[in-house]
């Protein structure tokens, strides 16, 4: 369960969000500039809220009143960025293994194999990110985040940088991810169609405020 109740001033822009999500995939919906990325950056711990609390499964990650701010590397929250952000100096295999190494987790070949098959990236393992297509890069980024065994997975418009054909190529993987990986997700998008396919719950954000919350039907105007 993810519990968020925060406020953050970003220049002229005020972000205020208060929601509790228990869905498998929480869709964070809104136009660009609505504050979606700032909000999940706060959940990841990359940005510190001015005031408020963030808690995941009962564990407090942020509590401004108590002076609590858990560092991103201690949160065990995976993050798939719009621009993949694979490490250019490591091949795909080392990129996938990075989170396991940094978290000091035991090698888990079965899990790795499952993720590699789920995302169909077995043929890419020896390549460098520079030699991958946009869609391939994004699939590796999913795998890299999953293999760090996060408690929550944040996806910030992971299809945003891809053309329609690539989106159609990736969407089935995301549906499988949702149904098979068993990790709760927060999925950021400004594309209602995408969220209708993936999300189980919607948080609608507009101008830094939550305007609607509920099932995917809130997406229907």
């Amino acid at each position, binding site marked *: 369960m993810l519990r968020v109740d925060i406020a953050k001033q970003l220049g002229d822009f005020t972000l205020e969000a208060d929601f509790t999500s228990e869905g498998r995939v929480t869709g964070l919906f809104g136009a660009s500039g609505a504050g979606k990325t700032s909000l999940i950056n706060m959940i*990841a*711990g*990359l940005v510190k809220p001015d005031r408020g609390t963030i808690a995941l499964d009962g564990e407090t990650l942020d509590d401004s009143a108590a002076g609590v701010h858990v*560092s*991103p*590397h*201690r*949160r*065990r*929250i*995976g*993050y798939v*960025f719009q*621009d993949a*952000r694979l*490490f*250019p*100096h490591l091949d795909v295999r080392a990129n996938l293994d*990075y*989170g396991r190494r*940094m*978290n000091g987790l035991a090698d888990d070949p079965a899990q790795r194999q499952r993720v590699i098959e789920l995302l169909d990236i077995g043929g890419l393992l020896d*390549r*460098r990110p*520079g*030699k991958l297509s946009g869609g391939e890069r994004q699939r590796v980024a999913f795998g*890299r*985040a999953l293999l*760090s065994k996060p408690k929550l997975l944040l996806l910030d418009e992971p299809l945003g940088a891809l053309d329609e054909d690539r989106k159609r190529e990736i969407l089935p993987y995301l549906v499988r991810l949702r149904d098979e990986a068993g990790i709760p997700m927060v999925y950021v998008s400004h594309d209602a169609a995408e969220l209708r396919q993936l999300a189980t719950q919607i948080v609608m954000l507009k101008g830094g405020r939550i305007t609607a919350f509920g099932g995917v039907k809130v997406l229907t105007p």
Partner: protein
Amino acid sequence: MLDISPTEWTAILLSLRVATIATLVATPIGIGVAWLLARRDFWGKAFVDALIYLPLVLPPVVTGYLLLLTFGRRGLVGAWLADHLGIVLAFRWTGAALACGVMSFPLLVRPIRLSIEAVDRRLEQAAATLGAAPWRVFLTVTLPLALPGVLAGMVLGFAKAIGEFGATITFVSNIPGETQTISSAIYSLIQTPDGDTAALRLVLVSIFIATAALLASELFARRATQRLHGN
């Protein structure tokens, strides 16, 4: 013509040793300082920045004299080092290495700092979300990606250290076999009648070393760039 005498060999080997030690000791310090300047804001940062570049703009003889005042036998740090650790720097080759290290430090730090600044911070954020503590982010992402700049800084620092003259001769004098580097040997030879041929030999040697260093840096940089971006 390139019939190098034992004295000249001694100076050449000493120069190489002094510059190598100076570069090897200065590099980790330089990486730390470059990271601080590139990635951290702290009180007095502008002062630290200026202090590092000081050897570049001060007359070398001034830097050398300040080193002598500080690290000489009766200097504040020098006396302590001699009494407690038995380390004497003044008029020793180790002192020459210190002088070269200080003089080359700004040239070493600058490329490293620029290359750290050029590392995409979003990659560092990604590493943090994957569980990497800040020091591991530095070792596994920032430093490898800044490697071409580190190598460039090392070569530049080494080249400067090989050629350093003013601060070295002021701090550790010009003692054959102990502190007489190529530069000080050339200086002595020029002042000796009939020293021209020998001086010219050492001039050729220093041109050779400098060219080799620059070629090596070019090669390293190309390799590193390939390693980072190619397959």
